[in-house]
């Protein structure tokens, strides 16, 4: 993303953030979770009664759910009563006062990614007053979206301002009964993004939450809902390439996408949460439920993710292809190094006729990183002529890392055509020697080879994001061959 784009996003969200922060400055809740806490959250956000009811139902259901154990990741049990589910942003005097106080390694990475100083301060959570050079830019940006009838705001705002839409669609793709972490999120989510693209509108710009990270405490249980009406198009970017520090260890977000007839949603993520120290201590647990519903005929949902951060990742952006001729895509690059563990993949549920899905998953493991691809392709009985193409490639960069593949295929209609290709390769000493012999230094050779490996995924990212992703990969994997 260019600096201009970032500034725009920053500015569009500023108004809300400022209001939000002033509003709750005095409030904190002690760690622990019960119905009173949920009532407190709902009241603080001035939510309507139905929203509170929904949260409470989710909570009561969650209490009955077992903690999922099936993922190929290992961590000590989480004490859900030790987490504070609502806390005011830190007061300035408790925050680092300047970049000199943060981890020099983090600072170095920011510099190498070419992030401007004031943005570095925000990412690192330094106490600063945001200074914006042009308010008019933001105004025209918001005006432009409004002109098109597009709604792009925080989830809290949407609940207040667009209750009918939220009520209709929230939980329609990921119900609170879906899984343990989605259930928890439904009960306690504090914020997130809401996007509504009306019929026939092509969103004129990439939408992004980039700078919402500034409000650190909304990130923990984030809830995002994107609705694309008939014939509309939208491309949404989430996250940023810069490493993000966060004191919240558990992140359980839910993202729901709905595409009506002929609508297209492209959702791109670059995730670079703190992975923990060399032993994996203190890293973020990223347990996310992302699902898109191709509700209409000829609709299309495309997920692209570049996952380099977090201590543990548990994430399966999926598509439910209900409309006839609908298309689901999943492009993923995941990197695990140090002590990182990732169990990630996708689900493609074919329900409509002539539905098509594509899965391209590239896993890179280095150091002691452990990575599993887990993917489900299901062809339901009525999905005539469904097609799926899956490709899972793993690259190993050390003798101590691991790559695992768990493909599930469930075909209930004989007209289906499925293809599955999988490769595992060790980054070759021969490849590196070959590059060296042409004058290319080893570090550059590794980045060349890895970027080549990830190319099919990177090219699905919006242009500027792709450039950043490449650079991120370079820095992430520096010195990883061994």
């Amino acid at each position, binding site marked *: 993303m260019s600096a201009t784009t970032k500034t725009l996003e920053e500015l569009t969200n500023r108004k809300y953030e400022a209001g939000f922060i002033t509003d709750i400055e005095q409030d904190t809740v002690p760690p622990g979770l019960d119905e009173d806490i949920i009532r407190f959250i709902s009241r603080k956000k001035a939510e309507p009664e139905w929203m509170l009811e929904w949260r409470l139902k989710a909570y009561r259901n969650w209490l009955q759910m077992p903690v999922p154990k099936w993922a190929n990741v290992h961590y000590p049990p989480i004490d859900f009563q030790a987490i504070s589910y609502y806390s005011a942003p830190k007061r300035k005097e408790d925050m680092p006062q300047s970049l000199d106080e943060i981890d020099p390694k983090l600072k170095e990475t920011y510099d190498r990614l070419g992030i401007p100083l004031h943005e570095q301060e925000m990412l690192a959570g330094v106490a600063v007053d945001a200074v914006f050079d042009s308010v008019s830019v933001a105004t025209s940006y918001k005006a432009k979206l409004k002109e098109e009838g597009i709604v792009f705001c925080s989830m809290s705002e949407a609940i207040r301002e667009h209750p009918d839409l939220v009520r209709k669609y929230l939980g329609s793709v990921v119900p609170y009964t879906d899984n343990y972490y989605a259930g928890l999120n439904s009960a306690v989510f504090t914020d997130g993004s809401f996007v509504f693209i009306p019929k026939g509108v092509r969103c004129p710009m990439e939408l992004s939450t980039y700078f919402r990270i500034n409000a650190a405490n909304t990130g923990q249980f984030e809830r995002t809902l994107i609705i694309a009406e008939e014939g509309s198009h939208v491309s949404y970017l989430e996250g940023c390439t810069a490493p993000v520090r966060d004191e919240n260890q558990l992140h359980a977000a839910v993202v729901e996408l709905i595409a009506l007839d002929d609508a297209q949603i492209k959702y791109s993520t670059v995730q670079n949460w703190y992975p923990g120290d060399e032993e994996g201590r203190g890293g973020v647990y990223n347990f996310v439920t992302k699902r898109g519903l191709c509700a209409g005929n000829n609709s299309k949902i495309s997920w692209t993710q570049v996952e380099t951060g977090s201590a543990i990742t548990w994430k399966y952006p999926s598509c439910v292809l209900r409309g006839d001729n609908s298309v689901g895509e999943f492009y993923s690059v995941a990197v695990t190094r140090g002590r990182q563990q990732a169990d990630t993949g996708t689900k493609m549920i074919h329900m409509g006729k002539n539905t098509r899905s594509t899965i391209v998953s590239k896993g890179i493991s280095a150091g002691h990183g452990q990575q599993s691809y887990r993917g489900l392709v299901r062809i339901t009985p009525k999905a005539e002529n469904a097609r799926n193409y899956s490709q899972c490639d793993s690259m190993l960069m050390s003798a101590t890392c691991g790559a695992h593949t768990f493909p599930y295929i469930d075909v209930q209609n004989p007209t289906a055509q499925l293809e599955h290709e999988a490769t595992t390769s060790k980054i070759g000493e021969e490849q590196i020697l070959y590059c*060296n012999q*042409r004058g290319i230094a080893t570090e*550059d050779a590794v980045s060349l080879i890895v970027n080549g490996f990830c190319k099919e995924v990177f090219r699905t990212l919006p242009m500027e994001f792709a450039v950043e992703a490449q650079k991120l990969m370079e820095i992430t994997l520096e010195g990883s061959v061994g």
Partner: protein
Amino acid sequence: MALLEIRNLHARIQGVEILKGIDLAIERGETHAIMGPNGSGKSTLAKVLAGDPSYEVTGGEVYFQDRNLLELAPEDRAREGVFLGFQYPVEIPGVSNTYFLKAALNAIRKYRGEKELDAMEFLQLIKERAKSVKLDEALLRRPVNDGFSGGEKKRNEIFQLAMLEPYLAILDETDSGLDIDALRTVAEGVNSLRSEERGFLVITHYQRLLSYIIPDKVHVLLHGRIVKSGGKELAEELEGSGYALFDEAAA
């Protein structure tokens, strides 16, 4: 001083000694051929000169344009002007030939204190050189060696040689796996690149290649040592008698 001077070179891999004292000097403008049966150490010599870390040099010296080659990292040897045409060129999926060569050429230029080429200059050069070695331009856009036929891979090596303009080009069994037409094209490419400035070390199993690339000197490598050196007629002699004759002489 010679372009390349190898003195009493010993090298081993996984504890097994393969090179047992090689002496060889190549002058600028000369083309030398090394012939020998399988396992004689031909490819080992090529890889040791390129700096393949799987080989351990246990003795001897190698000077390239007065620089101690063995002290240099593989990429620096390349930047100094040593090129190895690989017997089995590796594939680098997702990285276009053009991109790869631009990275390589500019790394070399930077090392030599020359201006790096911009995209336009580079594109012009690459098209010109592709034409000169009769490489299909479509191959420039394809990932490095990925899905190339055997002949295309070898031709691509010669094309890279033409692009990088080294002072010494070592060709490791460039003829293996080529049919006669491909062999001729590759040889023509090599011949077009011979110059007074550049030395060639052509490693081959068969005399066949040497009817197209006429060497100035031929060396017979056997059990890790050069057992005989001579002019181009030595290659023909070998074709008639085989290596057995030398084997006895060596023993």
